[in-house]
């Protein structure tokens, strides 16, 4: 009961973020449930050339088996997108986690050790500013191909993309956590607690964690949007995730070729799903940022 | 007063819109300034004196708004003017000296540029004439080396020097009246006296009338011909300066005179001799706004606000004004 009432209150006081949250939950369910009932259309068994270019069901030549139509390989777009969306979500969430872990570790190191270590880490962060996530991820992917060779790197493709994006996202996390550590580490209570024999790192961590939760959550949400766009863009460019693996970017890339000949639905639906997801994540991120604003201020 | 005064403000009311309510900030205020006269407007901060000055040339910033009242300048109704007409009044007929010299000058334009732009707007002068007149003004407000100042950016000048430029900017299009809103408050004490001297000299030279808004009775005593005392958005007393200082009629004015002003925690001068504090916006008591703090208050003061009525050679808004003999 109270949960229902709380949700109703949230919807009334912040309709935009509530709608965004609903869209995100809806898309997650879509990506989770559809694969339970339908085979992966990117497998050979999921394709049938007979059905290729079937338009959406309400258009002439539509087929109820393909509500949103089929692509050039006869893949059912409704299921193909669910699989693609699953890739987007997996890559997005995992790469943000990697960015968080990497940035968190470097931020803690920078804040605790200080001095030259701190200077070096922060300088690297400055230089990395020149290279946005997309560019870095492309470079890292190119390096991975050079190291592993094309065949072997195809098998590792998703892992490589996750790490490529994750590595590109560490800077903001590191900066936030570093400044938190620097604020806390010289407080009197740290010295006081040291007397009791606990380690300095444990004490500071205990005090920092509640403080950094809010900004880290905000940065994570905003970076989730960036990570999803980056993955989709990489797949669209034909880098990283191979075309045989489901992804929204690959579907769009594929459909783009048929835009001129009038088969708009092949790229339009994946575009729509991608844009919905990204806008919902961004709206949520903006809302969180405004909500936690006093905590974010004076921190950067 | 012989003929029509230069500036005539009648029943000016200003409201502040907060949470959908229109709270009175200024309540039916009237005052006149004759040509060449200096009217001192005194009161505590929050009494509505700065708002009254800004309202004259329509400079109020929302949520402040003029609710009613008539303002005439040399017979022209300022309150009825369209924005384009008002622009020709601002600077040209009414100069305005801002309070804080540190924030009042545009930080990215040279002093000379700001002066010539202002004059070019109102006076038909060529490039050379504009420049030489700007140099003149820099010299007239007492700054050495006008050519250097002309090309300088505001941050290269001290606070006192900047306030001189602010005064030059207000006067350079030769207005008939200058509204000076706390012109010395933001300055060091040592610079305040110099600034008053400068304003007195310029007043004598230009003959422009002045509406001098201040919380500082010392400034009023030095500069003003007449004084209007503001309290909680109303004029409670007006009188020639000498009369006011010798024999204040309103108990609030008398309290002001007796009080030794001391700066509060924000550096503003506060009157300490009168018990209590001036009511805030939207918290006006019934009747005379001063009655909760007034030792002379009777039953009638609680029920109705006293109108401003002539008394001697001034006027006071009080049912039980002090007599001349009451003043120690």
């Amino acid at each position, binding site marked *: 009961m109270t949960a229902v009432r709380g949700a109703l209150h949230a919807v009334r006081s912040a309709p935009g973020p509530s709608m965004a949250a609903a869209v995100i939950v809806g898309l997650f369910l879509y990506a989770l449930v559809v694969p339970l009932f339908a085979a992966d259309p990117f497998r050979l068994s999921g394709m049938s050339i007979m059905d290729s270019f079937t338009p959406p069901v309400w258009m002439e030549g539509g087929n109820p088996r393909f509500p949103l139509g089929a692509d050039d390989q006869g893949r059912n777009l409704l299921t193909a997108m669910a699989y693609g969306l699953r890739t987007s979500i997996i890559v997005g969430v995992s790469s943000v986690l990697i960015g968080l872990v990497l940035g968190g570790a470097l931020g803690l190191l920078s804040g605790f050790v200080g001095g030259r270590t701190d200077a070096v880490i922060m300088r690297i962060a400055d230089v990395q500013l020149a290279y946005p996530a997309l560019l870095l991820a492309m470079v890292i992917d190119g390096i991975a191909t050079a190291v592993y060779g094309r065949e072997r790197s195809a098998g590792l493709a998703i892992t490589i993309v996750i790490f490529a994006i994750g590595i590109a996202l560490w800077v903001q996390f590191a900066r936030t956590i570093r400044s938190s550590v620097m604020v806390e580490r010289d407080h009197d209570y740290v010295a006081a607690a040291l007397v009791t024999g606990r380690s300095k790192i444990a004490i500071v961590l205990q005090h920092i964690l509640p403080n950094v939760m809010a900004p880290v959550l905000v940065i994570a949400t905003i970076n989730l949007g960036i990570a999803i766009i980056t993955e989709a863009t990489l797949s669209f460019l034909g880098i990283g995730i191979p075309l045989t693996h489901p992804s929204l970017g690959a579907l769009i890339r594929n459909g783009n070729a048929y835009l001129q000949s009038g088969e708009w639905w092949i790229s339009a639906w994946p575009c729509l799903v991608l844009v919905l997801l990204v806008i919902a994540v*961004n709206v949520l991120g903006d809302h969180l940022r405004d909500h936690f604003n006093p905590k974010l201020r004076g921190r950067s | 007063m012989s003929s029509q005064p230069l500036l005539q403000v009648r029943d000016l009311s200003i409201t502040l819109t907060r949470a959908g309510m229109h709270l009175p900030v200024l309540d039916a205020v009237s005052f006149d300034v004759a040509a060449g006269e200096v009217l001192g407007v005194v009161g505590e901060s929050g009494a509505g004196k700065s708002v009254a000055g800004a309202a004259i040339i329509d400079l109020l910033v929302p949520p402040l708004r003029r609710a009613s009242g008539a303002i005439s300048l040399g017979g022209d109704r300022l309150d009825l003017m369209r924005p384009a007409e008002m622009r020709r009044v601002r600077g040209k007929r009414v100069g305005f000296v801002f309070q804080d010299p540190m924030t009042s000058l545009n930080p990215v334009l040279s002093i000379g540029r700001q002066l010539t732009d202002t004059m070019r707007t109102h006076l038909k002068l060529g490039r050379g004439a504009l420049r030489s007149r700007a140099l003149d003004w820099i010299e007239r407000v007492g700054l050495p080396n006008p050519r250097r100042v002309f090309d300088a950016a505001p941050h290269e000048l001290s606070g006192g020097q900047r306030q001189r430029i602010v005064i030059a900017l207000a006067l350079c299009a030769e207005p008939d009246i200058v509204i000076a809103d706390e012109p010395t408050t933001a300055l060091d004490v040592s610079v305040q006296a110099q600034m008053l001297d400068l304003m007195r000299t310029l007043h004598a030279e230009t003959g422009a009338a002045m509406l001098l808004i201040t919380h500082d009775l010392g400034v009023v005593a030095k500069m003003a011909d007449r004084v209007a005392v503001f309290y909680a958005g109303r004029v409670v007393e007006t009188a020639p300066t000498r009369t006011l200082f010798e024999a204040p009629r309103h108990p609030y004015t008398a309290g002001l005179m007796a009080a030794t002003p001391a700066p509060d925690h924000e550096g503003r001068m506060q009157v300490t001799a009168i018990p209590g504090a001036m009511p805030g916006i939207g918290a006006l008591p019934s009747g005379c706004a001063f009655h909760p703090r007034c030792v002379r208050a009777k039953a009638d003061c609680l029920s109705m606000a006293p109108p401003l009525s002539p008394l001697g050679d001034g006027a006071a808004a009080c049912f039980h004004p002090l007599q001349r003999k009451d003043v120690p």
Partner: protein
Amino acid sequence: MILHAVERVLQTILVLLVISFVAFMLIATLGDPLGVLLPPDATMAERNALIARLSLDQPLMQRFLSFLGGIVQGDFGLSYRTQEEVGGMILERLPATAELAIASLVITILIAIPAGILCGVRPKALVSRVIMFVSIAGITLPNFVVGILLIAVFSVQLGWLPSFGRGQTVSIGGLETGLLTWSGWRAIILPAITLAAFQMTFVIRMLRTQLMEVGQSEHIRFARARGLSEARIWFVYAIRNALLPTVTMLGLQLGNIIAFSVVTESVFAWPGLGSLFLQSVQAADIPVIAIYLIFVGAVYMLINLAVELSYPLIDPRLKRRGA
């Protein structure tokens, strides 16, 4: 002032050296240049010649120095993919990207600056609200979706503009330009708008915020109290204060803009540096990737340095800083 400038220039050179070193290490440690560059039937002499050409027989530091020396003299090494000079490949692609960048900058200036001023001066007007609403698209939509959308509307539906290529180009002094032909002009419109979408949104939003802030300031109120016209107040007195932070923030977004140029060039099959980089990543052509990294870093650092060193021209307060 001069001292400060010298210090910043030295800092920039140091950072570029570090970037160059990282790029060099990529080339030195990844891939097998001899295997890639030599034909299978190469003779020992050919092999030795290539080793000398690439200075593979030298110690690492020595190789880095000759790598740097090569860059200074315009020798960027050999591509593994095409076996051509990287310098020549870049030079061949540069005009197309430069044209695209300039065109998108012109579009940004012509559209975003007036729109940003409008939104800052009249934030509550209907037009401003519409502009702000549309500008959300520029921030949230992935760059390639913007491109596809434009192609769908203006190429496929309306058939007004081409969706790929540069149109006809003319050679001037060895450099190809599309800006002298009608088809070149038509071809550049859609990619330039796609690339400009992000910058325009950014400039509009920054200008609006800055102008709304400046509009509240005392010196603008004082200017109004002196009777200056609204046009002069906004276009001279306010914009001068708002432009500096906007340009600074835009400079920091340059990396993003370069990344978007890769995407845009791919969507419109624009034969510029971005598509060269894309092909090189796909082919794991490390020398080209490394040189592109240095190129992007240098463009980013130098343009931001130029912006910073030009501050005093816009804002006299900064003239004496660091002196």
